[in-house]
């Protein structure tokens, strides 16, 4: 166990999650974590930080894994599986740390690096947030592909976690790949909410994206199912409604290919 391992801290959503990488496979696990999570190794310049209890991450034998899991560690016998399990474990801890403080939307978020204007792209799990981030994030700053945390002033707390990429069709365990490795842009400091989009991707969707601004009341119902810990936010409906009203309302976008959204985002974020 090296000193560097003890110093490893992941930052996201304005919280800091220290990791202790342990086990007989620590020498392999540590560089993999550092590489995949490279965008989360430094805190955002101005975000407040909530410090979490350290999380043990163990790569090792069956016996080591069983003992580690019993003490609450994220543990695995193979590196890919461990990295796959680490991502939701860290996300859950960060979400719990900021519950009630941020509006936490299941969304990708991409920011214009110059204007800092940020699009929050809400979509249920498995409906294209990561693909969208990979496609559009080459020209924009990658804020997250998982959870957009928005404070009361409309500023996002970035969570540029690794992206889950299927290495080969049919492969059950996704690779955790750094945004840097995928060539995605770096999120600006204080990315600021400019537009909230509800994504509806379909194979038979329109070639040209169709945009409808949803009335605030139904927008609240649409978004509520795509949030975490919204009930802990004081006056939650007012908080979300304020964000929507400040950004021109929820845009519901039907589309087929993620690349077709690029001109739309360019217009919204300019």
């Amino acid at each position: 166990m090296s000193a560097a391992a003890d110093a490893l801290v992941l930052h996201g959503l304005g919280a800091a999650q220290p990791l202790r990488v342990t086990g007989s496979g620590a020498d392999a696990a540590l560089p993999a974590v550092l590489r995949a999570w490279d965008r989360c190794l430094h805190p955002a310049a101005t975000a407040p930080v909530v410090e979490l209890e350290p999380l043990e991450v163990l790569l090792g034998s069956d016996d080591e894994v069983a003992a580690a899991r019993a003490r609450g560690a994220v543990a695995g016998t193979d590196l890919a599986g461990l990295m796959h399990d680490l991502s939701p474990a860290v996300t859950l801890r960060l979400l719990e740390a900021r519950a009630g403080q941020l509006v936490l939307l299941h969304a990708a978020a991409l920011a214009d690096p110059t204007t800092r204007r940020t699009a929050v792209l809400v979509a249920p799990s498995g409906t294209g947030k990561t693909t969208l981030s990979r496609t559009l994030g080459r020209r924009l700053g990658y804020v997250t592909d998982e959870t957009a945390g928005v404070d009361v002033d409309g500023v996002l707390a970035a969570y540029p976690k690794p992206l889950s990429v299927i290495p080969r069709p049919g492969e059950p365990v996704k690779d955790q790949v750094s945004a840097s490795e995928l060539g995605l842009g770096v999120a600006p400091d204080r990315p600021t909410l400019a537009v909230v989009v509800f994504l509806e991707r379909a194979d038979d969707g329109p070639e040209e994206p169709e945009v409808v601004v949803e009335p605030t009341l139904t927008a609240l119902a649409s978004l509520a199912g795509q949030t975490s810990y919204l009930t802990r936010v004081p006056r939650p409906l007012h908080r979300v409604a304020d964000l929507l009203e400040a950004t021109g309302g929820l845009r519901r976008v039907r589309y087929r290919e993620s690349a077709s959204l690029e001109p739309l985002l360019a217009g919204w974020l300019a």
Partner: protein
Amino acid sequence: MSGARVRRGDLLDVYADGDACAVMVASTVVVLSPLATAVLELLPAGAPWAPVSEVVAGLVERFGAPGDASPHDATLGVLRDLAVQGVVDLDGVTAEPTPA
């Protein structure tokens, strides 16, 4: 049915927009029609149980009597729907309308 009473449910938040509103019940958001919103306005937060007859009178005053049903039955229908979603608590009323 004379003992039927109603009160506002445990709502986390109410967001009004014009004559309609959205309410948060547990982690679910329910969008209410103007009629259902009026019911909620007749049942202030923290107020004790109110006789259903008071809600009937309040709705008739605001919207007039329904043309195709008794005001009481129409109001009970609305209250039952709202109770199923947790927007109101209903007491002393059968869960389903009594068959004719």
